[in-house]
């Protein structure tokens, strides 16, 4: 019941939007979302109500935040992982 599902806004008519969730289109109420929503926006839907417009630019920010968190951890660990990935793909028979 309380799972939040992100979807893409296809059209808006007053306070009702048609939102695409991986190919399934549903009507979603815009009564409680706190920002204007236009077609092309992404929203988080809860039981038929958009509770949040998801800003695209913040996705990059979140990833940057994770990277920042990892400061102070040994640099070579990540490198090791990347190298073993590359190494594994090289060993794969072509």
């Amino acid at each position: 019941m309380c799972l939040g599902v992100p979807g893409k806004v296809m059209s808006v008519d007053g306070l009702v939007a048609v939102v695409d969730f991986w190919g399934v289109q549903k009507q979603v109420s815009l009564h409680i979302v706190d920002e204007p929503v236009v077609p092309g926006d992404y929203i988080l839907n809860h039981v038929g109500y958009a509770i949040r417009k998801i800003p695209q630019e913040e996705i990059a920010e979140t990833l940057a935040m994770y990277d920042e968190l990892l400061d102070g951890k040994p640099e070579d660990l990540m490198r090791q992982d990347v190298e073993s990935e590359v190494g594994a793909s090289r060993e794969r028979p072509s």
Partner: protein
Amino acid sequence: MKPGEQLKFRDPVRAKALTTRLEELVKEIGRDPISVMHVCGSHEQAIARFGLRTAFPLKLDVVMGPGCPVCITDVPEVDEAVALALQGVRVCTYGDMVRVPGTVKSLADVRGDGANIEVVYGIDQAVELARKSTEEIVFFATGFETTAVATAAALLNDPPKNFSVLSAHKYIPPVMEIVTEMPGSRIEGFLAAGHAAIITGSGVFEAFVNTHKVPVVVAGFEPLDILAALVKLVELVRDQKPEVVNMFPRCVTHEGNKVAQEQLWKVFTPTGGRWRGIAHVPNGNLRLREEWAAFDTRKRFNIDVSRLWDYAPPKLLGQCICGEIMSGSKSPKHCALFGKECLPENPVGACMVSSEGTCRIWHQYGGHLDLRGIS
């Protein structure tokens, strides 16, 4: 977020780096166990689905608290809905609520006895049913602030006179205090549920952190969101820094969704009440304000639960430990019924009913791989 972009939050290189960091932090603290709690069924689902517990340090206990809205709906609240249905009133509710046991019966049980129970995806469907009919329609409204705001918005949007709300809505922030104050509680930090925090804002936890000196980190639902939030939380535990940190800024702001909050508090008032199996939680229940009496099922109907006492309670209910599981003091592996008499198709307790319940999630994803004790 485009569906494809979620993959960035499952990037194995970042995940590996985060789990290594987590391991280092736990080693630095050097205690066993370090216990933290999350209060959200969606977090438990992500942890189980992606097998994250196998990647957690052995000395880090990540416990699920009272985060399943279906499970914490109290027995007398279910009884009210069941009694109403037996009185011939048409009751609409979310799908997960139908099989949740009351004292003697669930809504599903009385449906078999001819009661009119309607499963809806959201409250708007129930309002729609009321508009198209002259009969009384009751919406049995459950869930935390994320669903309570939908109930509030529907009531503010001029519902028909034959529609009313039986509110069993719950408000998360107060229960964190109760669980922390429980005798024997070992909780050293909380992961706060990202979606509920979208509504309330991360700022809502500041008062709790100041009084209880326990850190709170707001977390999202992708594997990397959870790992990163745990790293931050354990860091705060290590530094003994009781702070609120928002690790889900792509959705959660400090002040939250003000439009939603305004509607929420126009319709609801927090009152004390029991959460199933947990305790009386001051201000933990959301009830309709006096101004909404016309749409309040409890004011509109004389709900006669006494008729339920003609039935005997289910035999195994006495052995159910859902309460202790929800307060985080026990886990499904401590339950004698789990996976035996209590199964998703034939649940004894509420935690096995809902897809957000601890027992159901553990059952679905093969239980909980506990590597403790293996050297």
